[in-house]
């Protein structure tokens, strides 16, 4: 199917050029990374930009490395590159596990984590792992660079704190100071490529500290702070897990849509919480299933 709207195409060679192009179009240009969301929107007529600014030629966005106690993931890094990175697998296995649940190999070969965050659909698999790791999004505009904590990134479904003249340069995850383990649990309609009906990231830190974040069960991906407050400082037990499950209904607001009813989502979020907590605890103790193995 052809794309009905006309637009100009630019492929800036460096970051300053990309930033000045963005400023020149004053909100009427769209950045293009992997295109796995944007090209679909263009075909469906949901976006009609005057210009596309392809960020794939900007070398400042290519890095995937540790600096200043953080893992910095450049905006051009694809999910395939995250999955193939030993650094990501060894230091941030929850993000690694989540990346493997995104779409299919052929989509992941193009789709970027930054693009996932900018699309900001409620079901995005990239967000929960970043929320539990308290990552931040680095942006660059014509006058300043900003560092936006993940907790302030999503402002609504498909809406973010990014300004029209800014682009995302990187996502940064602080290296955990203590021993941690966790999991990303994704429920889909079938095994294989599907968007999440419920997604949950769990991060367990030595000393009974818990971080939890859901996606696809509310307008934005979010931490489950009430459940975290209940769990923190206590030893995991069946009784504690039962109490945590009872708090799920207060922590999420699932809707009924083509992929699942709200009742099913709520029920499964509780099942996933129990299995997620147990899996994270087991992995922290050096046991449990290998990362990547399904627990649903």
């Amino acid at each position, binding site marked *: *199917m*052809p*794309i009905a*709207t*006309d*637009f*100009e*195409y630019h492929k800036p060679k460096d970051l300053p050029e990309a930033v000045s192009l963005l400023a020149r179009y004053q909100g009427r240009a769209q950045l*293009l990374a*992997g*295109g*796995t969301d944007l*090209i*679909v929107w*263009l*075909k469906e007529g949901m976006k009609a930009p005057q210009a*596309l600014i*392809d960020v*794939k030629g900007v070398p400042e966005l290519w890095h995937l490395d540790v600096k200043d106690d953080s893992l910095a993931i450049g905006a051009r890094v694809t999910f*395939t590159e995250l999955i193939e990175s030993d650094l990501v697998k060894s230091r941030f296995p929850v993000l690694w596990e989540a990346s*493997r649940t995104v*779409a*299919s*190999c*052929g*989509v992941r*070969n*193009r789709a970027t984590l930054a693009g996932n965050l900018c699309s900001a659909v409620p079901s995005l698999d990239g967000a929960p792992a970043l929320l539990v790791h308290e990552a931040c999004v680095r942006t660059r505009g014509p006058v300043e660079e900003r560092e936006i904590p993940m907790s302030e990134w999503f402002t609504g479904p498909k809406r973010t704190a990014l300004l029209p003249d800014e682009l995302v340069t990187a996502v940064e995850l602080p290296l955990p100071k203590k021993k941690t383990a966790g999991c990303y649990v994704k429920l889909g309609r079938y*095994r*294989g*490529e599907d968007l999440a009906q419920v997604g949950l990231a769990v991060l367990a830190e030595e000393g009974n500290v818990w971080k939890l974040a859901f996606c696809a069960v509310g307008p934005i991906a979010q931490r489950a702070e009430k459940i975290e407050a209940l769990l923190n400082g206590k030893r995991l037990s069946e009784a504690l897990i039962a109490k945590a499950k009872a708090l799920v209904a207060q922590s999420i607001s699932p809707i009924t849509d083509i992929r699942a009813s709200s009742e099913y989502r709520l029920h499964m979020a509780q099942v996933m919480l129990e299995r997620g907590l147990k899996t994270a605890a087991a992995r922290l103790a050096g046991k449990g299933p290998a990362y990547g193995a399904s627990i649903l």
Partner: protein
Amino acid sequence: MTKTSIQLKLNGMQRRVDVEPNDVLIDVLRDKLGVKSPKVGCDRGDCGTCTVFLNGRTVRSCLVLAIEADGCEIVTLEGISKDGPTKLQKSFVDHSSFQCGFCAPGMVLAATELLQNNPHPQREEIQEAIAGNLCRCTGYSPIIEAIEDACKK
């Protein structure tokens, strides 16, 4: 819109073609460059029938602009079987893996990419590699078995 001349290496040959910024790669490959193995199924990334190799990785050519491929290398099914069917393709034939065959070009490329990176995949890894390639005829078993078999030979 203004036409731009792009250059790409398509199945080993340097090709030049005029495109508009909103031309999609699959349409340019099929309609302007005469490569017919990639097919339009869903046209939105879900089905994998439009799969091609772009700089060594499989991509959904329905979600790539032709202009993005300027200076890139593209390999389609025509390109991987230039010297006759590959071992993998022969295995698909031996297993009668396909019925209508619409999914076959994409499936062959997805499996080719898998075996390039991982010559001896587990069954789950094969399922994962072709999870984005939909087949409406076969139920997948003969496809998975053919890939398993190709690694043994």
